[in-house]
């Protein structure tokens, strides 16, 4: 890999065991899958909506299906993967709760990463400007953003508790710096969770 992985992807890659079967849901151009294949000898499969991204993945020799996290996870058998990964995609799905359930059906464990909507810059934008935030991580105006279900670190923890999922790990990032879980609600730009049933 000539280009460094996005920090949340690097974090996920570092915690996937060697030889694991991995499904990357919303795999984009396949950057994470390629790293998992090349450095972890993972059997990585992908699901991606955008045809240009899928073509790019296949051109990299990756096995990727064009499809939609909301609809197409249903076609994967139970526990067919060690890990299901949903990076920066949860907030774009129609029903994040159902997608999360599907992830933990097809994968024994699930990595979920998302931008934290309670980061202080977002709060400041709402509090002082009264405007939906346009930030480095959320660069698109409210009317054209694909992010239809904004979520905060506390929201996500509450959903995990409600559904009775097990929290296997959590990591928080500001840029590429780690943020402690205690400060995450305000200071994390990115959250990465590892869950199991």
């Amino acid at each position, binding site marked *: 890999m000539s280009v460094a992985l996005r920090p949340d992807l690097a974090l996920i890659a570092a915690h996937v065991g060697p030889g694991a079967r991995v499904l990357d849901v919303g795999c984009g151009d396949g950057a994470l899958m390629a790293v998992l294949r090349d450095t972890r000898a993972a*059997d990585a*499969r992908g699901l991606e909506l955008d045809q240009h991204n899928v073509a790019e993945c296949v051109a990299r*020799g990756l*096995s990727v299906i*064009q499809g939609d996290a909301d609809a197409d996870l249903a*076609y994967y058998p139970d526990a067919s993967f060690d890990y299901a990964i949903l990076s920066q995609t949860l907030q774009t799905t129609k029903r994040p709760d159902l997608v999360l359930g599907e992830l933990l059906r097809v994968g024994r464990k699930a990595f979920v990463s998302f931008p934290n909507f309670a980061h202080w810059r977002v709060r400041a934008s709402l509090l002082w400007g009264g405007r939906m935030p346009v930030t480095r991580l959320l660069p698109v105006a409210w009317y054209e953003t694909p992010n239809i279900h904004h979520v905060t670190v506390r929201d996500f923890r509450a959903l995990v508790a409600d559904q009775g999922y097990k929290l296997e790990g959590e990591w928080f990032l500001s840029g590429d710096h780690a943020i402690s879980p205690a400060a995450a609600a305000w200071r994390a730009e990115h959250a990465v969770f590892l869950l199991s049933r």
Partner: protein
Amino acid sequence: MPEPVLQPVNDTLVLPAPLPLDGGQVLENVAVAYETSGTLNSDKSNVVLLFHALTMDQHVVGTHPKTGKPGWWAKSVGPGKVIDTDHFFVICANVLGGCMGSTGPASIAPDGQPYAMRFPVITIRDMVRAQVALLDALGIEQLHAVIGGSMGGMQALSFAANWPARTRAALVIASTARHSAQNIAFHEVGRQAIMADPKWKGGDYGSGKGPENGLAVARMAAHITYLSEEGMHEKFGRKLQDRAEKTFGFDADFQVESYLRHQGLSFTDRFDANSYLYITRAMDYFDLAEEVPGEDGGGKLASAFAGSEVRFCLISFDTDWLYPTSESRGIAHALNAAGAPVSFVELSAPFGHDSFLLDVPAQDRVIAGFLG
């Protein structure tokens, strides 16, 4: 070691053993005509088998002996091209039932007369079985990949499902795992056009002028299904052919009429009407889930691929209404359920079903990447 070749090589093999057919009959002395390009490596591990579509043949690269035109995929197969003959040894065989050198209804039966309608009804798997026998004769154990578009894709699917140990990868373009009612309906129009032509004579038209009008109409109807509405509109619209006004008659006033008539007529110069009947029948009979029932007794496509280690890639086109994206996606889901490594992508191209033969750069990237 054979010498490197730049020009494709054409050859015909008579299969050493009788060929059993799905219909229960057995064909003796089956000829398989094939074209090869590139160089077979010493351990015979660099072979790509291309399967041709309904009205094509083994002339992938080389000039077609009847039309004088370049081979049907010369754009994509050759030195330094998407399917690079500097690396791969590419084989394409005329299908069983065809009319370009492989045994078909125009071939001479043991009694010295052409088979005509005495030729047994064949299936897609029978076509594949003949080509597996060709590989056996050439001493090729395992292919690098099988590739096919349209009916070629059906053969690629059938090959991978029935002979999974014989290929490492299967690339299926603009195809389907079974013919739909609409697909069968269009083919039936074509067949009835041929059979309604008095020159068809129950198939016994011999080597002379056959049911050219019927075959031309069949081709015209089929050709419409290969194009998209948008593509036809772009190309022809309501433009008139070499005239300023409508003639208030039934000449080919419109360009699209003239085009279809030309497509129909030129088709009769290179294709045998009985072959058209038999090959379209084989396509109509194709249903992979039925062909490879698996342990659960059949019906589920996923069972056809159970335990498969073949890598698959499926490509569909957004303007293809003959074998629409939903067909390829269904195959991808079945392969997923079977745990097979599979890629699937729908590409945007304006040309309808024929897109797979035309200039779609995204397709080139996917094919080259998948072949590795």
